[in-house]
């Protein structure tokens, strides 16, 4: 499958780490979106970051350079967002 059909979610042990990476990436102009972690990625609730595949290498470098602790990176097939109530 083509890479653009996937979203990449970065998961964290806690939101402090997630917000740190969000801030670092913003400063470096790397696109990332805070999102609730989808069930396909983890059964735990909480924030994750959606990032682009093309940026993964630079993001990993930031994670290492800033000693940010992540839990895992999960690739999830992109689905067409549909309205649903919750």
């Amino acid at each position, binding site marked *: 499958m083509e890479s653009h059909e996937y979203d990449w979610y970065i998961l*964290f042990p806690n*939101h402090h780490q997630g917000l740190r990476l969000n801030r670092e990436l913003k400063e470096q102009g790397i696109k990332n979106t805070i999102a609730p972690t989808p069930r396909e990625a983890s059964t*735990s*609730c*909480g*924030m994750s970051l959606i990032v682009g595949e093309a940026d993964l290498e630079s993001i990993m470098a930031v994670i290492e350079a800033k000693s940010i602790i992540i839990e895992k990176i999960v690739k999830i097939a992109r689905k067409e*967002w549909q*309205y649903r*109530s919750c």
Partner: protein
Amino acid sequence: MADYKQMWTDLGMDLEKHDLLCEVLPEAFGGVYLSQQNRPQGMGFYDFVVSEIHGVRPAEMLEHQKQGGKVFGTFCVYVPDEVVFAAGGIAAGLCGGSQFWVSGGEKVLPANTCPLIKASVGARLDKTCPFFLIPDMYVGETTCDGKKKAWEILAGEVPFHIIDVPQMKRDKDVAAFEAEIMDFIAMVEKVTGNKITAERLGESIKLINNKRKGLQRLYNARKASPVPISGKDALLVTQIAFYDDPARCAQMANQLAEELEERVARQEGVFPANALRIMVSGTPMAIPNWKLHHIIETAGAAVVVEESCTGTRYFENLVDESATTVEGQVRALAERYMKTNCACFTPNPGRVEDIVRLADEYKVDGIIDTNLQFCNLYSTESFLVKQALADKGLPVMHIETDYSEQDYEQLRTRIEAFLEMLRK
């Protein structure tokens, strides 16, 4: 991943049932919010709050309680938060906006009760929301019959104080509300063990006014064309304002407003400049009720203002900060809160005047006047709203809906037809 299971267990939550809600949230939020393009960067904070919705803020409240502080759960914009914060407490708006909680409410309430009340009662009884389990006290009011009776049921669960909101707006009614605030002060002092002095109340009045000013500034940016932020995003900001820390709320709203002002200066918008501009008026949309805004905005029109409790009614009118005695401050609070125009008042010409004024200020093309199902007050008042707007030549449609997905396609058809009519 953040693990709040211990916190939820300690609160006595039904983890299995709550997990069903956690499962749905990412998809529901993604479908409504993450599907949008060119969102302001400042929305990242609000996306974070939703992502950690039953974690971060509840943990802050529990920490506050550990330090000896008290938490008060509220359900209405007539409850003066200033009093709670002046006593070192936290006030948190609890109104339920989730369909998930409705069935829990229906176990004890008549089916023909509005979904906001059913969801609020269901969230508490089903033990599926930490916000409903944390407060030391609930603060209700008398703004509708459904709520008044629901309070009697919830009072079996948690200590309850009820503020009697007058039904009319004569001078003696403002004086009566002033007396209600004095009673509320006495109750909050008793629960918190802290005296509310003029100095503390004065600081608290400034704190809540600053929050209102931040939200006003954000809404002001929505008057621009093209509009720099979607109605859905603005609605989310207001929904979160109900339970966030007020100082942080003001700070984040101001940051976002600054970004929006820069967008306005660049003439950058999230809809084309010629997109239809819609006002949504009526009953509140508690988090996570985003249905109507989503339908309107995915049909190509922008919601530019909400005349509702989750909109202008929440932050219009500031409390006069000049009083130096508690009595003077309470008078100022009563005067400010009694300016809010809810359909629970009779007569209520101020609300129609607000809608007409906002239509002009935000240059709207049409108004969607809506009420939650079984809300007799707003539903009845819709007749007068329609009549007054017709006199002014302002196009309006009335919609009654709930939190479910059942009428989604039907509403979409009706709204698209309304927008089509506006385009002609």
